[in-house]
């Protein structure tokens, strides 16, 4: 039968906030799911299967919460899958849902991801001591700071590039009604003046802790024909490597490079910088923008920061990045990857509102997780992929 075309036909997001005390975990997921279904013009009866994704269960203290969520997400009597691939899970969840349609198994699949960080203690959950495993007592920032330092040393990037990313993303977030941190007055100077947390990462260069959920409906060709401007899934890729191995390069991981190469190949893209109109990239700490620009092949190694410094990653630049404000402005961890994938879809559907990139026809959604070792990414476009 071969791979079937699949498209994002509905997107739903909650407003991302530090605390959504008005909603339970189920209520949070339902808010996003209802919006995605409404956007797709379908109801729960039209959904064939549900895929749930979130980061570690220890965050909220609910083991396999999809079992409890089955009723709230209309999954009773249907297939229900639960994906967990660390920080990349939001992206992986979208890819698993897409594969159910591409395999010809289902017509419409609902994918829902969430994190309710206000009911969770991520620092604790990430700091349980494990024999024979390197402790991460300082949370994610403590883990990644040495990689950032190494990037700056290797590339010779000027110190303010990270601050530029943070200021851009916070300004972009001010155009996105769903974003958690909406701070249009953020400047390079104000970021540089914020407290140093994990040298060289300053407070304003880190992601917030958010409550939130994101949902998408993926449909087959027939389902896509019923909606305006579906976002066609032109390529997907996932790659993994282990956390610790002497031959790993955690600054520019091989898994990310190979995932990107596979992605561009599948999408028929030879010059990503020219052929991709905008990108939503997983940047939880500002410096990961230039680092991933290189890892994804948008710029040669050591030169990604130049794209950022020249302003080309602003909306209106050659390669706008994180038009929604990115992970730096909203971070419900389990959903953060899917938000990237969903925002890429909104761009090529022309539905990104005030943060729309003019004429976006092809966009990248990207997520990573673990110790920079899990990568998931997709390319969506306004054109149906060639058979």
């Amino acid at each position: 039968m071969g791979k079937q075309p699949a498209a994002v036909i509905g997107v739903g997001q909650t407003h991302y906030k530090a605390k959504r005390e008005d909603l339970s975990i189920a209520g949070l997921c339902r808010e996003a799911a209802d919006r995605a279904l409404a956007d797709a013009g379908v109801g729960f009866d039209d959904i064939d299967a549900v895929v749930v994704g979130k980061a570690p269960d220890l965050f909220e203290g609910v083991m396999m919460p999809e079992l409890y969520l089955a009723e709230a997400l209309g999954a009773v009597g249907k297939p229900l899958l639960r994906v967990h691939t660390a920080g990349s899970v939001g992206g992986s969840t979208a890819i698993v849902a897409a594969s159910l349609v591409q395999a010809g198994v289902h017509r419409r699949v609902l994918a829902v991801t969430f994190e309710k960080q206000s009911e969770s203690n991520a620092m604790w959950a990430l700091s349980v001591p494990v024999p024979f495993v390197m402790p991460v007592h300082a949370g994610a920032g403590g883990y990644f700071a040495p990689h950032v330092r190494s990037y700056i040393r290797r590339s010779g990037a000027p110190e303010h590039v990270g601050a530029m990313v943070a200021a851009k993303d916070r300004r972009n977030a001010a155009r996105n009604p769903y974003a958690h941190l909406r701070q249009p007055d953020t400047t390079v100077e104000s970021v540089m003046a914020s407290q140093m947390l994990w040298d060289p990462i300053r407070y304003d260069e880190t992601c917030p802790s958010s409550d939130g959920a994101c949902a998408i409906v993926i449909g087959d060709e027939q389902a896509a024909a019923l909606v305006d401007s579906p976002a066609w899934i032109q390529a997907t890729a996932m790659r993994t490597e282990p956390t610790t191995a002497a031959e790993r390069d955690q600054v520019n991981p091989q898994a990310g490079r190979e995932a990107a190469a596979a992605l561009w190949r599948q999408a028929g893209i030879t010059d990503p910088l020219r052929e991709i109109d905008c990108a939503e990239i997983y940047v939880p700490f500002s410096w990961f923008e230039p680092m991933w620009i290189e890892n994804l092949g948008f710029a040669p190694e050591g030169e990604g920061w130049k794209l950022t410094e020249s302003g080309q990653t602003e909306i209106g630049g050659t390669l706008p990045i994180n038009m929604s404000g990115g992970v730096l402005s909203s971070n419900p961890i389990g959903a953060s990857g899917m938000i990237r994938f969903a925002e890429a879809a909104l761009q090529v559907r022309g539905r990104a509102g005030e943060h729309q990139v003019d004429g976006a026809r092809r966009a990248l959604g990207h997520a990573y997780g673990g110790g920079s070792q899990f990568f998931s990414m997709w390319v969506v476009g306004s054109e149906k992929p060639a058979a």
Partner: protein
Amino acid sequence: MRDVAVVGFAQRQMDAFDGSPTMVELLVPVFGELWEQTGWTKADIGFFCSGSSDYLAGRSFSFVSAIDAIGTLPPVNESHVEMDPAWALYEAWVKIQTGEVDTALVYGFGKSSAGQLRRVLSLQLDPYLTAPLWPDTVSLAALQARTGLDAGLWDEKELAAVVARNRATGAGNPHAVVSGEVDVADLLAEPMFADPLRRHDCAPVTDGVAAVVLAAGDRARDASERPAWITGIEHRVDAQSLGLRDLTRSPSTALAAERLDLDGVDTAELHAPFSHQELILRTELGLGDDVAVNPSGGALCGNPMFAAGLIRVGEAAAQISSGRSAKAVAHATSGPALQQNLLCTLEGGR
């Protein structure tokens, strides 16, 4: 749909594993067995997919350490479900159906002994209304068993007979952690554990790992002389809230079965961690007395969480590949009181 077969299967089961909760020490030799069975290496695998639970390991990201078992670089195409690996097998089957890959290695691991399993599993319940009361899984299963007893659907003797039969067949399975001939009368003389369940009505707390290799078409024939072809695979979930369910039934199993052709099934591997659950499953699947149920001894002889469902598929496939079965059905369950269920039919020669 592409023809996809199980071409390799390996497992370990034990009372208590004296090693890391990620069980890499067991996964490495199990993968080694798969390479021997198939003649393949890591480079032949298009997709890796695992199933496990952070809560069993008592830490976040236990699957992250487990991928060490795959080896270092080059990176692999890989995914993970926070579920029994039978659902990872489903994801891998779907991946092969997209045409992106032709082969997959599916694995799962669980160190149930690391905590108090029945209490750990109560964290699967509604976190606001039910979990704070800490109803444990054995007690919930006992409620389910009581419901059936009161409805006259089974009696204690039938439950004991299920245990005796599984333990007897399990005697032929080197991986079983409990097995052997037992008298129904002796079983009934045992004290109650969670009334009306006796300890032997409940699967033993078991540690273990399992791994399966899947392959499509000629790749399957290349790896195995007798591939066990997956002729159907379906899964469904029920509502969790016990007040919304008829606990004597398993609607999700029935719904999954509706989509499969179970005619001619001669062997069934059922993932029933409690004796009465086997009776529920047999009814929903319409299995007659002529069907060999649990040649492995089933979950009552060993139930490594986050491996046991995949082991059912592997054991059913082994029956096909050995020629002992012409058509088998494998079943996996997850969640309290059979909330979520997966079925997979397997056949030989094509």
